[in-house]
């Protein structure tokens, strides 16, 4: 049962089913839209309606009570749907287009078409204005897209601001028909993030991966080079300023440009806009072709979508939304554009949020991928630079082989894979067959397994540690003190540079083809059990078994040289290539008898001791390199350049700290009289003694245990004082007030001082002068 309504159609009353009426109304609307630009549209519509009315009366005459759905559909079929019409675009169409242009112009230009101005056709556009229509007018004049002009103005805002104001004032406003046939849009069909590059590509008629590459490249290079730079901060590659400035600034400029374009440039939604985006002529044919192309691309996109199910969830949701909305708009007639535009606007909002998520996701994924990339590059280069060491670490065929596999599959392969993926993504190439991914993955797993094997192998190589110890024959020094230093045999020079890195702080140096010099030496000082000095030398090495370890240990040459109280050690020991690096170490145990002295020169500090620990309980790899090995810590603590005396409680400094004096500042008291100068200095001079020579080396000095300080005087008038920086004159209590009554005495003293100072040009006297 259906509702019947009466309509007034072409001057006649027609009874028609309501649903049929809806169909009819839609049809007429679609015709209206179709002929929107036709000159004589109303006439055409009228004619068609007349025909419809004729057919209505036919049916009614033949006995129908009313017009039904079927009637309407049959009529529509016979007259035809708009999309089935053959559009004539030959001469009549040209005139038609000219007519439509005229019609549009007449619609938009109520006033006289041209105002005679000397500027020619340059007006401000009153129709397409955001502020004053200046940009749009310029665009019109130059046949450009106003969006481009606006962007230029926005970017060069500072300079062009006044230009803009000037133009706004001078140039008259006018409704100018937009005569651009090519506008910049964002391409919704060809988008990765926002369709900006796709739109640019269409505008300039280039492939879409070109702008993508241009936008992405400095960005990528910037990230790669910064990660590169951070990894090798210690290495003087020297060019870390050059490319980075270019890539970083360029990258950020392009980034900002992308954002601006994304915001300012609209999507090409309607078919005519899409045509404009490509700069093609907008007429019914091309519109139809575009729509058909959209359909076809919709199909292939649906296929791609099916094969891309594995990709991110946002991608999925995004495409489904697009598919749904575009398919929905296509299902309706071309004429129902208003409705579809509304729909698209609604889904646009949702897709904006989806896009934001997608960006965030891609951004994070990109950062992770790129940092991975950088790490891999670092490892690769690190691996390459370690290459000379390779022969010293890897032993045997298998280890070498595994190492190569690790290098290629484990390290280089992901690099290649990431690069390939990036390039593919940028170029928009999608491979249906994912075998490449499988191959890469398999090879990488092989690399991973090889890496594990290699590490296990290496760990095995360092498993057993063994040592060879021997007692060294030394003669007891005559002076009751032993002085230990490390030296370089004159004439031997080692290469201290390695790939630009400074090897001064590395445990090895002097890398050559068949040997490396190591400095893994440590000196422990202990209390001697008798009254003689003893030196023991222990040489350690590691190996899969103890035998080999012992053998390697005994291969270490570390001969010491004694000249009375000075013991000279070599700067390091050599490890041959055949012996391989197996954490060879030399430990010197120096036993000092109680009451005797020892001092170690600062050259000893160059030794770098480290210990490779194989610990099966901890961690995945179980190799642990300790630089701070404390398991041989039954040694007295010592610092270089300090003379120590052995007591019952281990080493003690000869320049003992005053136990009762906690004075950090120190006192400095000086008395000058005719034949002697008496100085009282007491202070905390135990700090920072490493680099300063102690002032106690003077052979004439008598060590004082007097807590009040030191007294220096002797019978000659010459005074030999070495004052170091720790005696703080600032806090001295002997400041003489120049205004006091004791000025005369001060002057006297001053005179004395000067006199004295003339004789002796020791700098401390100059300092003292200031006091008086």
């Amino acid at each position, binding site marked *: 049962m259906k509702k019947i309504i009466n309509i007034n159609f072409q001057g006649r009353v027609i009874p028609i089913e309501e649903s049929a009426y809806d169909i009819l109304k839609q049809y007429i609307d679609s015709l209206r839209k179709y002929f929107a630009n*036709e000159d004589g549209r109303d006439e*055409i519509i009228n004619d068609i309606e*007349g025909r419809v009315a004729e057919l209505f*009366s036919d049916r009614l005459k033949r006995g129908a009570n009313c017009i039904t759905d079927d009637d309407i559909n049959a009529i529509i079929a016979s007259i*035809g749907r708009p999309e089935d019409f*053959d559009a*004539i675009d*030959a001469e009549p169409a040209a*005139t038609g287009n000219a007519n439509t242009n005229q019609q549009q112009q007449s619609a938009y230009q109520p006033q006289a078409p041209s105002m005679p101005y000397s500027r020619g056709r340059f007006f401000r556009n009153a129709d397409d204005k955001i502020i004053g229509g200046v940009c749009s007018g310029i665009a019109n004049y130059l046949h450009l897209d106003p969006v481009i002009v606006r962007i230029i103005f926005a970017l060069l805002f500072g300079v062009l601001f006044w230009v803009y104001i000037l133009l706004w004032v001078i140039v008259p406003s006018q409704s100018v028909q937009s005569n651009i046939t090519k506008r910049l849009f964002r391409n919704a069909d060809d988008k990765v993030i926002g369709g900006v590059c796709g739109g640019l590509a269409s505008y300039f008629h280039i492939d879409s991966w070109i702008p993508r590459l241009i936008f992405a490249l400095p960005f990528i290079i910037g990230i790669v080079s910064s990660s590169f730079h951070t990894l090798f901060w210690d290495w003087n590659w020297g060019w870390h300023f050059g490319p980075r400035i270019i890539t970083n600034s360029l990258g950020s400029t392009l980034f900002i440009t992308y954002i601006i374009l994304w915001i300012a440039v609209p999507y090409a939604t309607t078919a005519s806009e899409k045509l404009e985006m490509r700069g093609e002529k907008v007429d019914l044919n091309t519109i139809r072709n575009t729509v058909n192309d959209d359909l076809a691309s919709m199909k292939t996109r649906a296929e791609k979508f099916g094969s891309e199910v594995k990709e991110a969830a946002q991608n999925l949701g995004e495409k489904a939304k697009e598919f749904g909305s575009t398919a929905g708009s296509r299902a309706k007639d071309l004429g129902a554009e208003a409705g579809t535009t509304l729909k698209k606007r609604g889904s646009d909002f949702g897709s904006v949020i989806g896009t934001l998520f997608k960006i965030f996701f891609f951004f994070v994924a990109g950062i992770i991928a790129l940092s991975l990339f950088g790490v891999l590059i670092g490892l690769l280069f690190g691996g390459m630079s370690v290459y000379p060491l390779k022969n010293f670490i890897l032993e045997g065929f298998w280890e070498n082989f595994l190492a190569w596999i690790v290098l290629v599959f484990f390290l280089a392969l992901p690099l290649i894979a990431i690069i390939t993926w990036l390039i593919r993504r940028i170029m928009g190439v999608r491979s249906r067959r994912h075998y490449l991914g499988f191959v890469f993955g398999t090879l990488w797993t092989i690399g991973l397994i090889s890496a594990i094997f290699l590490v296990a192998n290496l760990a095995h190589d360092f498993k057993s540690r063994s040592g060879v110890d021997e007692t060294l024959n030394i003669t007891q020094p005559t002076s009751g003190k032993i002085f230990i230093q490390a030296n370089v045999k004159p004439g031997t020079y080692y290469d201290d540079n390695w790939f630009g890195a400074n090897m001064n702080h590395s445990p090895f140096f002097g890398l050559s083809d068949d040997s490396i010099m190591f400095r893994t030496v440590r000196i422990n000082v202990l209390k001697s059990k008798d009254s003689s000095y003893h030196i023991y030398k222990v040489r350690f090495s590691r190996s899969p078994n103890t035998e080999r370890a012992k053998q390697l240990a005994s291969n270490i040459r570390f001969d010491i040289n004694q000249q009375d109280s000075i013991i000279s050690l070599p700067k390091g020991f050599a490890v041959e290539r055949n012996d391989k690096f197996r954490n060879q170490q030399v430990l010197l145990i120096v036993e000092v008898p109680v009451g005797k002295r020892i001092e170690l020169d600062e050259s000893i500090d160059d030794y770098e001791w480290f210990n490779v620990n194989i610990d099966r309980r901890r961690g995945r790899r179980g190799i642990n390199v300790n630089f701070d090995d404390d398991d041989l810590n039954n040694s007295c603590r010592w610092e270089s350049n300090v003379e120590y005396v052995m007591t019952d409680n281990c080493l003690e400094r000869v320049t003992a700290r005053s136990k009762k004096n906690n004075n950090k500042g120190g006192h400095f008291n000086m008395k000058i009289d005719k034949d002697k100068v008496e100085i009282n200095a007491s202070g905390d001079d135990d700090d920072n003694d490493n680099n300063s020579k102690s002032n106690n080396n003077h052979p004439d000095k008598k060590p004082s245990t007097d807590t009040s300080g030191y007294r220096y005087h002797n019978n000659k008038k010459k005074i030999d004082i070495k004052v170091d920086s720790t005696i703080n004159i600032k806090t001295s209590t002997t400041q003489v007030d120049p205004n006091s009554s004791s000025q005369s005495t001060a002057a006297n003293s001053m005179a004395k001082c000067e006199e004295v100072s003339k004789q002796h040009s020791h700098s401390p006297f100059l300092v003292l002068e200031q006091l008086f």
Partner: protein
Amino acid sequence: MNIENTQSQMRKGILEFCILSIIRRGEAYPSDIVDEMREAGLQILEGTLYPLLTRLKNAEMLTYRWVESNSGPPRKYFSLTEKGMTFYKELETTWNELANGVNKLTNKNESLPTVPDNTNTN
């Protein structure tokens, strides 16, 4: 897709000429024209016809007059103007040229030995 494009282009080219030739024979209204075309083997939709007629009328090739009818709304009867007649004559000449040329070419091709590849020997 492309073949349909070409085919429709071909059709579009001769459409005006056909319509004008029908109207030349006497006054006609759109329904008649559609019927005649169908009889001649050329299908045309009224939706295509009406705009075309309107354009021709605007270009002063055609005129029309209203004829009342008791079985429906009034109808437009179209007839050729002088300008339209001139236009028609020119189109006829063009059509003859085209038809002759195409016929010559198609007939000629049949008598040539068939060339397997598409090299153009002309």
